[in-house]
């Protein structure tokens, strides 16, 4: 068998055996393999956390940036080079706690990137504190009485902000995840995929088994229509005994790069100084006495 283009590297991962991140890494690799992209067409921007290490284990360009700042870094890169296929990758803490403001506004901007959130409902790397996705009552070192806050719903929020592509998948369902990632990449505009990712070390509640027995595919409901925003928003509230996965909502909107006339002549990374433009500006300062 020929080597996969987007092979996962032989580099030893920093993940615990059995971690849900492995499933995501493999699905990502498979998804890209079929998208007729080459590794150098792809940029993975990631945050800090166990999830943020993912790009180090797959082929592609990598920018492993700060905790919580994947989205603005990815946005900057995409705006100056729309030819890159840009992923933002991070944990639920990264994206919904530290990075919450960027999430809101990335969705408004509708920049054409794919955002993968490894959602283990906990801060993994810092050893198990509550994340915005932790269920109420979850006991951790920072919440000894159990989490009192309502869990954050990234999908309902994304639908409210009219994000272009809003989906959930599950690390334990590879074919679903591969398909969802591909659909997300193929969507023109901001795509968010919240991926249920069991943390076998710090989340003893939301385990593989817990998720597996609960998830069901939205596709199973023939009547589900991802263009119906209100229905999608209501569906996104569902959590508990039954957890839907799949594409909740999809809408086509103008993307941010289209809004900037500067890119009209191709990617900005390929443009030099606009000599004539600057000259004109400078001439404007002349005292024409």
């Amino acid at each position, binding site marked *: 068998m020929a080597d996969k283009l987007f092979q996962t590297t032989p580099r030893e991962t920093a993940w615990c055996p059995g971690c849900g991140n492995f499933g995501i890494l493999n699905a990502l690799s498979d998804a890209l393999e079929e998208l007729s992209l080459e590794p150098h067409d792809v940029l993975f921007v990631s945050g800090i956390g166990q999830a943020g290490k993912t790009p180090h284990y797959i082929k592609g360009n990598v920018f492993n940036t700060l905790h919580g700042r994947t989205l603005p*870094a990815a946005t900057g890169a995409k705006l100056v080079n729309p030819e890159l296929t840009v992923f933002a990758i991070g944990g639920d803490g990264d994206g919904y706690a530290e990075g919450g403001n960027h999430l809101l506004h990335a969705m408004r901007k509708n920049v054409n990137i794919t955002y993968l959130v490894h959602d283990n409902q906990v801060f993994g790397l810092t050893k198990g504190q509550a994340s915005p996705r932790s269920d109420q009552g979850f006991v951790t070192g920072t919440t000894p009485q159990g989490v009192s806050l309502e869990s954050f719903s990234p999908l309902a929020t994304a639908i409210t902000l009219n994000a272009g592509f809003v989906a959930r998948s599950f690390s334990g369902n590879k074919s679903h995840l591969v398909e969802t990632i591909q659909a997300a990449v193929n969507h023109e505009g901001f795509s968010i995929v919240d991926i249920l990712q069991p943390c076998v070390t710090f989340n003893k509640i939301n385990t593989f088994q817990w998720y597996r027995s609960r998830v069901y595919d939205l596709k199973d409901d023939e009547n589900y229509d991802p263009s119906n925003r209100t229905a999608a928003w209501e569906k996104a509230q569902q959590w508990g005994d039954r957890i839907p996965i799949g594409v909740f909502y999809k809408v086509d909107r103008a993307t941010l790069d289209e809004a900037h006339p500067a890119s009209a002549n191709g990617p900005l990374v390929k443009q030099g100084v606009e*000599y004539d433009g600057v000259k004109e*500006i400078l001439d404007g300062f002349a005292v024409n006495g």
Partner: protein
Amino acid sequence: MNSFSIKIGGEAGQGLVSVGNILLQAISQEGWYLFSHRDYESRIRGGHNFTQFRLADEPVHTLEEAVDVLVALDKATIDRHRQELKEDGVVIYDPSVQGETIDEPGFVAVPFVEVAQDQGQPKVMANAAAAGAIWSLLGDDLERVNGIFAAMFSRKGEDIVEGNKKVAQAGFDRVRDALGHRDMPPKPANAGPQYLIAGNPALASGALAAGVKFMSAYPMTPSTGVTEFIAANGRRCSVIMEQAEDEIAAMNMVVGASYAGARAMTATSGGGFSLMTEAIGMAASAEVPVVVIDAQRPGPSTGLPTRTEQGDLLYGFGTASGDFPKAILAPGDVQEAFYLMGHAFNLADKYQMPVIVMSDQHLADSYETTIPLDMDKVIVDRGEIVSGDEAGPDYKRFALTESGVSPRLVPGSGPALTVAAGDEHDEEGHLVESAEARRAMMDKRMAKMKGVAEEALPPVLVGDDEPELVLISWGSTKGALFETVDKLQEKGQKVKGVHIKQVYPFSQDLEAVLQGPGKKVVVESNYVGQLEKLLGMEFAWKPDGCVRRYDGRPLNPDYILRELEGGGHLG
């Protein structure tokens, strides 16, 4: 130097800015050298603001405290500023606003609105009345001002132009009738072509001339002028200015864009700079070139948003946690603002590190006439860049080199891949934990500081070679400093002026100056003496005295001379 100062005061929203613009144009077109500064409050309407103009027969880069003409659009102008009037000074005021007529020598009542209305024109043309009134002191007729009206209002129709002309003439006549002709500084011969430009547009133009392709920022006074200037020229110069949701996003977008290969920058102030420091440190670790303009204003915290201070030097010096390479530049005037931006981008690219440009409200908002900015003098040096086609499969983004600089690869430019991280990493950019790898990568990054230090810009020196007194300052204090040197020399003192435009790392040339002859006095706009502290740190040195200002107003020669004479600060 022979100069003449005009101060126009009024409430925000009263038309100060319009009158100011007319005068800026008219004075500079008339051939005088000009320096002008705005003093305004952090509000949109009301309050008390003023603009001061100083025209001269020689290039002028600072204000004087005393004024020849005071133009009062509000009552506060006379109440607060009349004591600044020179002997023989003139006050043009509106008796209806003042609530009284002032019967003193030099006071001329011009009811601006009434004058406009008398000419059958709307109230807003009160501005033209003021402009005409002022111009009667400067010129023999209104031709110059009328030309400006034509240029400004022709799009609005001939009626408007003519209306303004008439009103201006009425204002002109009022003052001319009262005071007759006044002598003005001679107009310089052979001054050559001039630009009229303020610090913010100079910084922004410098960035555009250097090929900035991406900017992201969140509005913050006094940096917003840079941001809006770049935004306005997005199409013309192929640059994206993306307003961010906050400064954290702005800085991280900039780092992302630069990682991807575009020259990228941001501009902010005080609290906004705080929010950027984490990402500045990250850029240093991932060796991504970025240029950050910090337009200083008085702190701590929100402080005085529209005033000036040089209070961020120590903060910029510390910048973020850990040790990393960087440079800090501090332009002293619009010329330096323009050219140092190009230099900042080159340094950032060459050493793949953050470069901070410290501006302040005084530089940002002051207009001056200056010789033309020449974009042919702006050289673009993108440093060591390798394309993804050349690089080959063994490309290592952070290859250990003696200079510390490793060729940078633009992602997507060919088959080779580039990996970068804010965590400590190996040569390939992947995360490492070992002590050896850490040491190697620190040594590599910090090795860059050797190059950076070697090409540190030398101080600008003026005045005597064997001075009794050496005045040292940085950034926008340059104009005040150099004129102070001139004035002291005129009095026969042996004085040297030292303007530092690169504040980190310092040029080693400074050592000779600091250890050389003369009493050393550091002049700066902050409370603790931030430049003094940094010089002390670098050169194990203490000055003989200092002049400091921390009330949010710019330094000027009068203030400096008074402090020097007071001598209280000479140790």
